[in-house]
């Protein structure tokens, strides 16, 4: 039996913060844990087989944290697992009461709004890129070779698909903003 397990594109699959947290918690309960989360963990995350653990995971996002952000969480006994870009992952082991980091609806919504806004920026960017590429293709279609046309179509298709995916992510987080 393998003692490691690799998960690909986890943050792209579990786009709602609460879903990501629950997924990590379920893996921990099954005895799969990460030692450290790093910049590329959103693409590839390696879990190690351990004893089953009852961890509460927290997904938080801050584009610019103040110096006391990490210290505040540590004061509350949260273990810093790692950071992917501006996403911070915390965990705390528990036995009976499942600990929370966001203890009122206002702060849960604020966290989710911050995540949604970060995705929204990428969504708008990709929509603009898609529109610009379509306009450029239409304006210069007569001057392009068949190979250039194919490349352009593939690029537009990719940008369009990714824009649609990002739009779906924004919608899904918005629909789940209260948890």
């Amino acid at each position, binding site marked *: 039996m393998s003692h490691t397990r690799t998960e690909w594109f986890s943050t792209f699959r579990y786009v709602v913060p609460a879903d990501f947290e629950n997924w990590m918690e379920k893996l921990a309960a099954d005895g799969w844990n990460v030692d450290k989360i790093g910049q590329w963990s959103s693409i590839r995350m390696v879990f190690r087989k351990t004893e089953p653990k009852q961890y509460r995971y*927290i997904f*938080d996002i801050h584009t610019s944290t103040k*110096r*006391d952000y990490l210290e505040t969480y540590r004061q509350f006994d949260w273990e810093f697992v790692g950071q992917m870009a501006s996403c911070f992952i915390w965990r705390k082991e528990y036995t009976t009461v499942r600990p929370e980091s966001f203890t009122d609806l206002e702060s849960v919504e604020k966290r989710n709004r911050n995540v949604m806004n970060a995705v929204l920026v990428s969504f708008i960017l990709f929509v603009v890129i898609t529109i610009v590429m379509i306009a450029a293709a239409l304006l210069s279609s007569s001057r392009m070779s068949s190979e250039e046309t194919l490349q352009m179509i593939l690029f537009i298709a990719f940008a369009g698909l990714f824009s649609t995916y990002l739009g779906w992510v924004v919608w899904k987080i918005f629909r789940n903003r209260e948890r």
Partner: protein
Amino acid sequence: MFFILFALREEKHGYGIMQDVEKITSGRIKLGAGTVYQSLSKLESDGLIQPTQEIERKKQYQITKIGEKILSEEIDRIRELFRITEDFK
């Protein structure tokens, strides 16, 4: 926000705020780290609290004059609500 502002009539750090709020609400409200950090950032940017010093990497905060004024107004509002609803069963 009200309880955090209320707790910061005396200088405290994040965890100290949580302990104070839990105590004054008889355990009913137990603030989490994310909520405390968000609230402190918001209250500080609104000028209602200010950092005072750092002890063992723990940043201490205290209410400002504007914060005291807002807190006092909020207490008056709650007192009025209490007075109005006192006889209501």
